[in-house]
């Protein structure tokens, strides 16, 4: 007994050491990527690098936010099947403070950038905007003056602080309650989580909606869409579910989820993933359809810009590859229960979620020459920002993962989740 005990401890220790080594590598890569991106902001085409950084930030943040929403939904609905997959999601919410830190660097850069170098045009009164087809400054833009009570630097800064306060605050409460339940097994933690989820789902819904309006929609502040926040939410949920599949299958591969994460869990995630694929299409189409139908130049220009040049193909790729392919793929039962197939479609969805963010963010800025605005393309600085932020997120996840039990072993619903059956 005792020998087998030490043997197990030793393999646990080596596993932990391997995990720490991996986390350290991720941190190094992440730090290097972020430093390079900062260099790019200073020496490169700074608005383009800034937009690329925003794409990377929103990509990784959307995964964390989606998982945070899922955690709260699981608590609110007292879900039984999901207890096992909730734990990796809890680790994933540790990325919020780091995302916030990087975001504020970008925000300060944009606040203090010289004319036309920041990414949010309205932040500097001397920045160039197009008003009724004519080049003008923000100062001369009557539309900006009507929106300036909301869109001004101080209020934007405070709101961003508030959003991250809500994300980090509620996620930390939910996470630490769940971790502490591992120790004392007190069922009261579940009640704590449920109460905070009830508040968090409303606060989080509002925060994520306004965050997407502020950070993404206000890039083109003439344009408005009331469904924009829901678009961001639906994309975040899809990305989170896809990332959950990848993380859980990796944990099966590493060993801690072997025999724990089963076909029935994969099937449930696949079904929710199918539902959110349809939901995303419903929202994305509704936005397009209402603007197409109303046909008002104030808002149609946003889509007209996105039919120009290679953005046309990006739009079609979103329609066919971000909706039709995953939709038809996930309709079939076998595709939802085979790990290889779910891994494939999850990577696919994440890739096109990234493209969706490009589509919404990149054409916002007027390029200096030739094109009216940035064409679709992946720049070197996009990659450094994506890998940099990703590296930090992976490091934060692994660090939290190594410090806790792989599953919430004393959650009241853990047996139900372990024995979950289709």
């Amino acid at each position, binding site marked *: 007994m005792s020998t087998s005990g030490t043997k197990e401890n030793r393999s646990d220790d080596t596993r932990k050491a391997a995990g720490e080594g991996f986390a350290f590598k991720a941190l190094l890569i992440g730090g290097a990527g972020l430093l390079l991106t900062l260099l790019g902001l200073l020496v490169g085409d700074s608005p383009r690098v800034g937009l690329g950084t925003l794409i990377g930030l929103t990509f990784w943040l959307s995964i964390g936010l989606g998982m945070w929403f899922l955690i709260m939904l699981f608590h609110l609905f007292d879900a039984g099947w999901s207890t096992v997959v909730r734990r990796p999601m809890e680790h994933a919410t540790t990325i919020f403070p780091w995302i916030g830190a990087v975001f504020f660097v970008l925000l300060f850069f944009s606040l203090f950038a010289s004319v036309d170098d920041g990414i949010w045009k309205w932040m500097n009164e001397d920045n160039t905007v197009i008003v009724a087809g004519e080049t003008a400054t923000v100062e001369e833009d009557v539309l900006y003056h009507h929106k300036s009570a909301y869109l001004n630097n101080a209020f934007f800064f405070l709101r961003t602080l508030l959003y991250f306060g809500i994300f980090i605050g509620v996620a930390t409460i939910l996470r630490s309650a769940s971790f502490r339940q591992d120790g004392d097994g007190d069922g009261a933690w579940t009640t704590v989580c449920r109460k905070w989820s009830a508040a968090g789902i409303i606060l989080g819904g509002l925060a994520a909606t306004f965050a997407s309006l502020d950070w993404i929609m206000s890039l083109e502040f003439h344009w408005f869409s009331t469904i924009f926040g829901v678009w961001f939410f639906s994309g975040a949920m899809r990305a989170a579910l896809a990332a959950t599949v990848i993380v859980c299958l990796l944990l099966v591969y590493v060993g801690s989820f072997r025999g724990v994460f089963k076909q029935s869990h994969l099937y449930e995630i696949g079904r929710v993933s199918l539902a959110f694929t349809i939901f995303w299409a419903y929202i994305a189409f509704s936005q397009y*359809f209402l603007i*197409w*139908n109303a*046909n008002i130049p104030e808002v149609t220009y946003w889509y007209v810009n996105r039919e120009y040049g290679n953005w046309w193909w990006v739009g079609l790729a979103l329609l066919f590859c971000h909706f039709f392919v995953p939709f038809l793929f996930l309709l079939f039962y076998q595709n939802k229960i085979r790990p290889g197939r779910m891994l494939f479609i999850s990577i696919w969805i994440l890739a096109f979620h990234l493209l969706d963010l490009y589509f919404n963010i990149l054409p916002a800025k007027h390029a200096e020459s030739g094109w009216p605005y940035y064409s679709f393309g992946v720049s070197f600085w996009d990659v450094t920002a994506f890998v940099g932020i990703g590296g930090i997120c992976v490091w934060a996840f692994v660090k939290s993962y190594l410090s806790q039990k792989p599953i919430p072993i004393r959650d009241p619903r853990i047996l139900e989740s372990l024995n979950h059956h289709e």
Partner: protein
Amino acid sequence: MSQEKKYGLIAEFETPGAVMHAAEKVRDEGFKHWDVITPFPVHGMDQAMGLNRSRVPLFTLVGGAIGFFGGMLMIWYMNAYDYPIVVGGKPMFSPMYAFPVSYELTILLAAFGTIIGMFLLNRLPMHYHPAMKHEAVARASDDRFYIIIESTDPRFEVKTATTMLKEIGGQNVTQLED
């Protein structure tokens, strides 16, 4: 024994485990026309009986496809072909504005397809089943589990089937009147 045609054999089991293992053996014997009656869903019974996945989704897909393309065709026919009207300077036909209606029709006919497929595949409505004549079968909604092997099964032969049902733990093996 009377000469009239029998529906098949019925055997009683006391626990879900017993009926599941018995079902596995019936499956391995190669029987095709047989069924298990339980008071509640028993997880894993589909595999134990060797059942494939339901074919209802196929009906759903066909219903949905008819709804979607039927909706598009209907709107094209009405607005662009039979009685063209310009509305708000929009094209006579565009999948854009036809989409919401086609989408709703997709959902509606997919639901119809599901219901119809479920009825057809379950051969519903079925107002009579020979098992209803069996006195003990009322307990199948309480605390007993049953296996029925139908006489239409190509491998069915009263004597061997009775012996087999007894061997795999079946009690009160009796014949069912049709």
